[in-house]
């Protein structure tokens, strides 16, 4: 498996674990049409934006869009950001000799009413990652 596919698999694996399911927040990858019409969910965008330290490595940003109902304050957004922190910050995922490692800090920005659905309010949670592969 190549580094990009491996990276995506590592990151999505966080949201396939029981610990995340227990949070009861729907997580959807970008470019995915869900039949679930809930007003609270997150959308995952894996952005491998920078070359890594060798040809099997890559660095980048995990951008998570947080959607909540519009008009109910920002409290729930920051609660979800805190939940994301618990699951992602400093996380070290090792599979088949490759490692995806998240930074020890994150940021969250408020974007306002979603342009595609005015019933939703949108925020962005960002955290950088490094994906390392060992050269054989």
């Amino acid at each position, binding site marked *: 498996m190549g580094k990009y596919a491996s990276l995506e698999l590592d990151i999505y694996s966080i949201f396939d674990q029981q610990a995340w399911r227990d949070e009861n927040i729907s997580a959807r990858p970008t470019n995915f049409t869900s039949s679930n019409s809930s007003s609270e969910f997150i959308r995952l965008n894996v952005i491998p934006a920078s070359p890594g330290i060798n040809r099997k*490595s890559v660095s980048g940003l995990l951008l998570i869009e947080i959607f909540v109902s519009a008009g109910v304050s920002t409290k729930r957004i920051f609660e979800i950001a805190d939940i994301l922190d618990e699951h992602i910050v*400093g996380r*070290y995922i*090792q599979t088949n*000799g*490759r*490692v995806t*490692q998240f930074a020890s800090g994150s940021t969250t920005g408020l974007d306002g009413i979603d342009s595609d659905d005015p019933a939703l309010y949108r925020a962005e949670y960002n955290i950088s990652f490094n994906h*390392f592969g*060992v050269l054989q």
Partner: protein
Amino acid sequence: MAHISSIGAGLYSDMAVAAGNVPGTLTESAVKALFPVDGASAGEGFDYFRVTDVREFPAMGTPPNIVNVPVYGQASSQQIQGQSDAPSIELQLNYVASDWADGTDLGDMVGDGMSRVFRFTLLNSKPTLYGSVAAELGAVENSQYYWVGKIEALQVTPNLTDANTATVTITIQSDFLGAFTD
């Protein structure tokens, strides 16, 4: 577990100092015994204290002292390993005054002249507990280095716009032992 087998950042690397006496012979088992199961001290003098909120670790290990030796008749000199200057280790901390106050375990070690065993553990992922045993540090990949030294000084740097920091200077009075793992 084992030594770290992949490339990564040591986000959870840890420094600890043992309260127990320095063993007469520095062996792997002797130094590890000073860092027992966390929270279940084997008796008076067998315990250890973690130095937390480390902002920056220095390079661990003895620096080289390479000496160039001219050799008659050769185009280039030779190099030999000379005796190194004893290194000292300076840790940059995000300073938490209550951890280092007079009367605290770590605070009382500063400048008391006592030799102690130190442990640096390279950790890419977070262990639940920090004893040098398979069930604690050994729950994640780890590489441990030990040495005998003293906490010589603590210098606090007040910051007006950033976090207050402190520099802890540790002298080294033995070779480095390791890397070991659990």
